């Protein structure tokens, strides 16, 4: 019995040392990671709606979105949020900015794990740029009667992006404080 206690103790000491080292490394890297992430998201938001102050809010459906306001006049310039939906082989996350009339200002694919060479092409400007200026009712892929030209060989990815954007925009539109129709 004593022998097993000794074994357990040795293993325990190794675990404690390892934990100590990891806690130290974490204390060094965690702030770097957090700061990088915050800057990246902030930059993405500012690229979509420049010169605005962002205020974080949550919709009734549980969607986190940001209201962009003019820093001086407090006039609402637009909204940004990250829309997510299951694509072909991964969850595709798209950051979108819309103006106060809910027309799309621009989109950016934040995260995707789609097929390289097919669905993964959704990050290319040739695909994302076509969303600029679209109104909610236009955001369907061309196969579903909309104006979004689907990526060749990746209709499912394209459809998932279009649908998640449209649903997200409708969700934000319906928020009472944005004057949306209830």
């Amino acid at each position, binding site marked *: 019995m004593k022998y097993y206690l000794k074994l357990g103790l040795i293993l325990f000491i190794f*675990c404690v040392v390892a934990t100590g080292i*990891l806690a130290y490394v974490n204390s060094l890297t965690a702030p770097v990671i957090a700061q990088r992430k915050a800057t990246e998201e902030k930059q993405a938001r500012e690229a979509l709606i420049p010169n605005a102050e962002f205020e974080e809010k949550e919709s009734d459906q549980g969607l986190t979105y940001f209201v962009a306001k003019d820093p001086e006049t407090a006039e609402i310039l637009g909204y940004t949020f990250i829309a*997510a939906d299951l694509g072909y*082989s991964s*969850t595709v996350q798209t950051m979108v900015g819309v103006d106060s009339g809910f027309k799309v200002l621009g989109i950016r694919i934040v995260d995707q794990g789609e*097929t390289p060479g097919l669905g993964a092409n959704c990050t290319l400007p040739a695909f994302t740029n076509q969303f600029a200026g679209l109104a909610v009712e236009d955001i369907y892929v061309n196969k579903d009667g909309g104006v979004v030209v689907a990526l060749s060989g990746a209709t*499912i990815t394209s459809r998932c992006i279009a649908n*998640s954007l449209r649903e997200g925009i409708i969700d934000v539109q319906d928020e009472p404080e944005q004057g949306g129709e209830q």
Partner: protein
Amino acid sequence: MGYLGQIFVMAMTAIFIQNFVLARFLGLCPYLGVSKKLDSALGMGLAVIFVMTLASAFTFLINKYLLIRYDILYLQTITFILTIAALVQFVEMVIQKNAPALYNSLGVFLPLITTNCAVLGVAILNTTAFRPDGVTAYNFLDSVLNGFFSGVGFTVVLLAMAGIRMRLEKSEIPKSMQGMPIALILAGIMALAFYGFMGWKI
């Protein structure tokens, strides 16, 4: 889509669409190493299903009630692998004592499972996975079911591989292709077949 529907989607995804071996490249060592005979493949498959289900349950609880609560997520890798190792050891002892017949068929595979990356893989994936709606994070039951279905997916392709390789023994293969190379090319063709399930909207 009701909850049962979501479970069905989860099962089909884990077994066919995002198969652990053929699409996610997890658990390849046993897939290529233990697929020479059908009965040993079955033993390995069952042992993996068992351990993956249990590991999913334990690691989910540890992640939620220890790592997230005390904000020590950086210890995730180390705690998960120790949990899995301890779990495998424990399962081995219990089976050996209470079910000698089961031990005889599964016993030799259990120690190998600790280093099967599919087990650690499913444990880590469960912590970041989402329900088919793409918004809700996995709860306890989802994680356990995902572990179980992923194990089933592993077993299905392992058995198929073993069946093909047993037949392959009787055919003439160029000398330099024998063994691992032909097994890999077979796996490639299987992966190609499984590609047909991708993009399958349920």
